[in-house]
């Protein structure tokens, strides 16, 4: 047997052995077969084909170099005595050449420009597919508080944490601490400046300066921030004196479309802020219109749950 062919067989066996060893190291053939993942099977098949094709082609050319003699017809041109044989294009090259031309015609007429392929169209299709998948996967989520909370937390980390912090503590006063309904500073700010940013949920807004005596404002701030404690008589009196109770309710339970609930953080309040954004004692919060309805509900539920822990 020819030495070259013998070497080729040896190399093939060695490479296939190496492929087998790699598969074994990655968990064995069974693992790939049992998983039902045909991509891995394709990769193994590809490796085997690659080994066979490489050795075949290399052997062919080595033998050609060993055995071939010069021959053929010379071209008319010669450059300072250097000539060139008239070689036919190799069959494979010719095939690729004509194949490319056919592909180019397809690409021009049916593929890209004339068929008006657009990146935006592809994006829209992707988005539709994704939205459908999202809807199917989370169809019943509104009835599953635990899952809703989980979704809310993951959205919170991406959308809210940059300002409110991962633990929602407001990062040392850089944003509102979401574990409590409202801080004393916020209550004072609203009494002094009014509030008319939650237009969608509370269209009327709240006028400023309903209370002007600093002592009374202080008392209301403490009363509201501490959660409407019944034994805080001064606070309750000031709350009534400022007519806060006519809209926010005797114990800060709020009134739909008129005034938000003050005694606890609830999902409706979070929803109202997400819809319109706000400008409060600390700074401005933008509206979050980029979330879907379900995502909104998830964040509402999660943030509302923070103060209950």
């Amino acid at each position, binding site marked *: 047997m020819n030495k070259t062919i013998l070497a080729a067989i040896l190399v093939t066996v060695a490479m296939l052995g190496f492929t087998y060893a790699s598969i074994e190291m990655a968990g064995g053939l069974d693992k790939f077969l049992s998983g039902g993942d045909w991509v891995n099977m394709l990769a193994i098949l590809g490796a085997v084909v690659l080994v066979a094709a490489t050795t075949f082609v290399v052997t062919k050319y080595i033998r050609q170099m060993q055995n071939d003699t010069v021959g053929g017809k010379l071209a008319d041109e010669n450059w300072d005595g250097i000539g060139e044989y008239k070689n036919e294009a190799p069959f494979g090259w010719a095939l690729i050449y004509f194949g490319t031309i056919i592909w180019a015609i397809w690409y021009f007429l049916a593929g890209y420009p004339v068929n008006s392929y657009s990146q935006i169209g592809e*994006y829209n299709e992707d988005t539709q597919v994704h939205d459908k998948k999202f809807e199917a996967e989370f169809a019943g989520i509104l009835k599953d508080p635990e899952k809703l909370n989980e979704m809310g937390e993951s959205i919170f980390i991406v959308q809210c944490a940059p300002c409110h912090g991962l633990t929602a503590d407001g990062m040392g006063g850089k944003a509102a601490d979401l574990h409590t309904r409202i801080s004393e500073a916020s209550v004072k700010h609203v009494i002094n400046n009014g509030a008319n940013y939650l237009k969608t949920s509370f269209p009327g807004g709240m006028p400023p300066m309903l209370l002007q005596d600093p002592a009374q404002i202080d008392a209301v701030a403490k009363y509201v921030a501490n959660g409407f404690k019944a034994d805080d008589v001064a606070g309750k009196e000031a709350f009534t004196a400022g007519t806060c109770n006519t809209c926010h309710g005797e114990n800060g339970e709020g009134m739909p479309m008129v005034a938000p609930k003050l005694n606890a953080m609830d999902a409706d309040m979070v929803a109202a802020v997400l819809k319109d954004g706000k400008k409060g004692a600390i700074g401005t919060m933008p509206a979050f219109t980029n979330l879907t309805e379900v995502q909104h509900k998830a964040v509402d539920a999660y943030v509302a749950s923070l103060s209950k822990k």
Partner: protein
Amino acid sequence: MFHWLEKRPFFFAVAVFVVIAFAGLIEILPNFAQASRPIIGAKPYSTLELTGRLVYIKNNCNACHSQLIRPFKSETDRYGHYSMSGEYAYDRPFLWGSKRTGPDLMRVGNYRTTDWHENHMMNPPEVVPGSIMPQYPWLFKNVADLDTAYAEQLVIQKVFAVPYNTELPTADGSKVTVKLADTLEGARAEALEDAKVVAADMKNQDVKDAIAAGNVPEIVALIAYLNRLK
């Protein structure tokens, strides 16, 4: 034909140029046909915003932050609507960037606010744990170069016919006019007025002092620019 060309280097070079130029034209011409005309809602930069843009370029923000949202679901979820060519009509130069060491800033004005930027520029890791963005304390002290921005405005108005002092349509149907002052003093005064609005939301004492003294710190101009990226 080819034998004739192969023996004449000059004409061969011309032929090569013609062939390559033809291929180039095929690629370039269609793009001119759909030139980046401003889309509805695009408006030129005001003096303060343009000053902020110069601060942005001066501090090389564009080395780490892109301003180009690609039409992929993952990007539009995070940054907002994908970018459109007409949105860059008044960007000279555009600041697309090609590398995102930090996040994209094309629409940062939609989801970050003045106070957040103030906290963030002073000490990024304090608001974004693990951030590798450096601190930019000098922005709070340096006085912004309004004059250069005004000069740039005058030039682009004359050379590129950028529509200052013209009513422009917006997406919601209303009109907006970006003013360009007649004099440098007027431009400075207008920029200071705009700066006061931004600085009202800020807490840094240096900034407040500078504004009170009639100066515009770089941070205020930069935030005005970032807030308008929408």
